[in-house]
């Protein structure tokens, strides 16, 4: 069975500090990993995916197959980063997503 674990329900950091949101997964095969973000009163939206290897809004995430992790990082947090962050995996193609429980990130001024 596939599973996504986000160990932190809540993460609070100060503006300008580094941020790391943890995500671990279990999947028998080669999954596709994603980070979705939900800002206050907005819909869930894709932040980034591992196959793109891109940086969005200063965030990056590297897939570590050995540790089955896909942690989200940003070197300098900004107040507008405050949101719910969900890690998700897919078997590829049009497969539906399996989500973690989410981490609520709060950036303090």
């Amino acid at each position: 069975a596939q599973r996504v674990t986000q160990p932190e329900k809540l993460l609070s950091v100060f503006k300008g500090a580094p941020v790391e949101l943890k995500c671990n997964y279990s999947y028998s095969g080669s999954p596709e990993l994603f980070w979705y973000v939900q800002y206050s009163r907005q819909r869930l939206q894709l932040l980034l995916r591992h196959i793109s290897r891109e940086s969005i809004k200063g965030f990056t995430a590297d897939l570590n197959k050995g540790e089955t992790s896909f942690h989200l990082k940003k070197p300098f947090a900004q107040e507008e980063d405050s949101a719910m962050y969900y890690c998700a995996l897919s078997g590829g193609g049009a497969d539906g997503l399996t989500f973690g429980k989410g981490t609520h990130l709060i950036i303090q001024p």
Partner: protein
Amino acid sequence: EAGVAQSPRYKIIEKRQSVAFWCNPISGHATLYWYQQILGQGPKLLIQFQNNGVVDDSQLPKDRFSAERLKGVDSTLKIQPAKLEDSAVYLCASMRTYGPQYSGNTIYFGEGSWLTVV
């Protein structure tokens, strides 16, 4: 392009009543998903359609939940009879899986329909 549209946004019903949610995906998106998100949890896939056919409904509680996408565009999710534990946000999502504007497997979500069962 217009986003995924859902209605109603909010619904309060008594247990054992029925409710239906409607979803209009992004134009041209062949794949449509319904997710259930209970407070404090991540979304859970209920059912996936490819055009008007069901691809995956393994997590749909079929004794009370049903969904259809008769013409391969709009979709309806129904709950009958509702239980207290069905209180959740029901998210519709869509993805373009073929065509000249194929954007990889980016799934776009609607704003959700909030259901409270009392």
